[in-house]
């Protein structure tokens, strides 16, 4: 029987992508129910980089499988895909899962295509029935979840970012070095001329304690911009729905939901957001939900702990006015 469940460990600059740590949480539960083990699969160009990495030591998995080769310095999709497929052929795992990062979403289909196996996307939950693994994903229709399975092995999927919270492992995982055949072709057709590291403002949305989000009901980009003011008054972060990102009101990195990130704040306030399931799967772990909407029947109004039936732009304006007044009076 195949006994390993792999999680792809996206490793860069001596750090694991948090997405790789998140996906270990459900995989660990599946592994214990099915009596299998979870391994984080990491490709790197230097053992030094991976050694003493705190993220790895604290990862909630049984093993870390490491492939180290100088050709792995840059992530070149053709080569990385081939290395991953080769390891999968060698180890015959039960499942292989990727965080839905840019890198994970680019590599997973190369591996699935090479092995000719199925690959699910946007998975944000699992169910086990009689030893069979089903993957959950929101689908079309009001509040509908689809339960998927894969006819092929290994089972493969990309998992939504933020859908699972990171759990720390009880003890450091065992590190296993993986050797590829002597005649393995390490060449890539892609040559990296330059890689410019960009220090992006880290998006703290998925770990924010307060999230103020806006949808089309805010009507204009100008109104949407005001969310940043409210967010700073509440020491929170700004989130958005997909159509708002597509309209160019805000960067896609702020999208909450199945195609964006999941959040788990103490307080979530949604301004002019209908609350379709593709969005609400990303907020269901919020402790307290406030909706501002003119439509009493909107799904978000029903989910909310408190719903304000009013114009979102006006409520936003008055909140900012009143809160900035009270914070000034503190000075």
């Amino acid at each position, binding site marked *: 029987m195949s006994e390993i469940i792999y999680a792809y460990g996206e490793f860069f600059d001596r750090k694991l992508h948090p997405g790789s740590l998140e996906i270990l949480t459900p995989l660990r539960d599946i592994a214990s129910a099915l009596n299998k083990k979870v391994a984080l699969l990491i490709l790197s160009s230097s053992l030094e980089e991976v050694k003493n990495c705190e993220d790895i030591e604290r990862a909630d998995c049984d093993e870390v499988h490491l492939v180290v080769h100088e050709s792995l310095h840059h992530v070149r999709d053709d080569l990385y895909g081939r290395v991953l497929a080769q390891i999968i052929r060698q180890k015959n795992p039960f499942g292989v899962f990727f965080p839905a990062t840019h890198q994970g979403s680019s590599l997973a289909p190369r591996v699935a295509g090479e092995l000719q196996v199925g690959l699910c996307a946007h998975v944000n939950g699992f169910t086990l029935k009689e030893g069979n693994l*089903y993957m959950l994903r929101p689908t079309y229709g009001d509040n509908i979840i689809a339960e998927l399975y894969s006819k092929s092995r290994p089972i493969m999927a990309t998992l939504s970012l933020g859908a699972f919270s990171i759990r720390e492992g009880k003890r450091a995982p065992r590190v296993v070095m993986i050797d590829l055949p002597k005649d393995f072709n390490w060449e890539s057709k892609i040559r990296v001329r330059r890689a410019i590291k960009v220090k992006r403002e880290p998006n703290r949305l998925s770990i924010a304690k307060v999230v103020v989000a806006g949808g089309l009901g805010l009507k204009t980009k100008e109104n949407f911009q005001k969310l940043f003011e409210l967010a700073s008054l509440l020491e929170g972060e700004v989130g958005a729905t997909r159509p708002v990102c597509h309209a160019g009101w805000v960067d896609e990195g702020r999208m909450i939901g199945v195609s964006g990130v999941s959040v788990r704040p103490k307080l979530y306030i949604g301004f002019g957001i209908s609350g379709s399931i593709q969005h609400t799967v990303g907020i269901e772990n919020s402790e307290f939900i406030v909706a501002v909407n003119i439509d009493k029947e909107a799904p978000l109004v029903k989910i909310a702990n408190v719903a304000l039936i009013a114009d979102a732009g006006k409520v936003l304006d008055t909140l900012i006015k009143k809160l900035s007044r009270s914070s000034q009076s503190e000075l």
Partner: protein
Amino acid sequence: MEKIIVCVKAVPDLRSVKVDPETHTLRRDSADLLLNPHDAPAIELAMRLKERLGVEVVVLTMGPPNASSVLRRVYSLGADRLILLSDRAFAGSDTLATSKVLAKALEKLSPFSLVLMGLKSIDGETAQVPPETAVLLGIPSVTNVRNISVENGVFILERVTDYGIEELEVAPPLVVSVTTKLDYIRPPSLKRLLKEREVEVTIWNAETLRLSQEEVGLRGSPTQVASVFEKTISSKGEIWEGPPEELSERLIELLRQKGFLKS
């Protein structure tokens, strides 16, 4: 340089589309179809390369017969040849089955130097089809590219990653998926818009592509929907109505009580 091929997807207009109450999939046959908005940047980059290299641009889509209207729209943006991959047997294809159909069509069209695709489709939103098609063809793929140029017969790509920007060099042929935003996207040409209805759309089916029924569509798709279920919402929340001023004050008071506000 050989020809450039752009793969576009005809996606249902979410305002017109109906959801099948049984399967909870989109009823694509009845829906108005639009060009996947994320494919517009791929078409734009193809046109920029066409201007510089003078190569032919072929546009390809797999979809229902009415997807031809979407292809004609791409003609107005500058496409030279339109090909529709359409067959009942293709219905229900997952990304692997879709990629197989596209790969077969691309093989039939080879030699080509470059295949351009959108980063993701707005209905499937998997971003899987470009790399999966590339690997089935045994060629490299680069995702999320925002700029392409050519030097000495080699493509120079600017790729956006989560960590920065990469400048890559790849010899043809390859598959590239393009970022969802570009600085500029040209409007359709008026002259071409007027000819849109007359242009020919070549149709290829499973037989033309030598694909068996087992390889494609629902049967050729390893990922399957086992069931769908409704998520129950317990609407236990309070509903407040009144003037915005008053509601805001009540909200601030509540947030204070709950400890979400400092004072």
